[in-house]
């Protein structure tokens, strides 16, 4: 195993963790079935190719720290990469303000809710603005953590068509 993505998942589980490496195998008839281990919980991996596995994180109410994350091709012999996976309480977003912004971008859009974890600094922490009435590709903007109930993202510009974005 060389890397995995993401490094965090919600406590209710179900996060698709992509594992990148090499020499992955799936030969059930020989007992070669990839697994992932999140702390002390083991789940079957989806074998995508010899270089990619996907594991869905199991539920875990312990959000106090990072858990070890390793993979195995037989459920017995595990990698020792030192990779970790952490859980955070599932956030809820109740409001976005303002809900109108100039097409030229630059508006500070605040998301209000509960249980926001502080992921600032990580490239995985961002807002995605997806046009709903044009074929332009979505744009992502880094998020700024304010506190556990507020996050801010600056709206992107450069929209040449469409007038509604799903955030």
């Amino acid at each position, binding site marked *: 195993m060389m890397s995995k*993505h*993401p*490094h*965090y*998942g*919600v406590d209710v589980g*179900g*996060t*698709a*963790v992509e594992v990148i490496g090499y020499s992955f195998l799936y030969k059930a008839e020989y007992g070669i079935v990839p697994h992932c281990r999140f702390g002390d919980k083991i789940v079957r991996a989806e074998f995508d190719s010899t270089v990619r596995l996907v594991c869905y994180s199991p539920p875990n109410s312990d959000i106090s720290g990072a858990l070890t994350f390793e993979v195995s091709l037989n459920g017995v012999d595990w990698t020792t990469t030192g990779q970790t996976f952490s859980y*955070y309480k599932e*956030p809820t*977003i109740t409001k*976005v303000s*303002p*809900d*109108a*912004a*100039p*097409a*030229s971008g*630059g*508006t*500070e*859009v605040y*998301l209000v809710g509960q249980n*926001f*974890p502080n*992921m600032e600094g*990580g*490239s*995985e*922490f*961002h*807002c*995605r*603005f997806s046009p*709903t009435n044009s074929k332009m590709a979505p744009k992502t903007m880094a*998020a700024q953590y304010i506190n556990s109930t507020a*996050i801010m*993202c600056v*709206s992107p510009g450069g*929209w040449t068509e*469409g*007038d*509604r*974005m*799903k*955030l």
Partner: protein
Amino acid sequence: MTFNGKDYDKNGFMLVLYKIDKAFPRSGPSDGLGGDIVVYGQGFRPEVNPLCRLNGTTYEPVGIKWNEIRCPMPAAQQGLEFFGNVEFAVAANGVDWKYFDGGF
């Protein structure tokens, strides 16, 4: 919104974009009896509480349509003899002020 780059929230909050093209007229009598100042563009909505600002004072628009915001033209604060420019701006979402070059 995602915290881990993988799991996105499913709330589907919408952000409506607007565009400000121009304002007209850009001058008027100092007694304020020149009619409304109309800001043209698109994507304007009354529910996001657009605002107008003239000479440092904020006013609520007197009318809002999808393609125009009508700002009141008050009498000049400097008096009826005033002749000159004052700043003019509109915030179509109540937050982001767009200042017009040359003011009003």
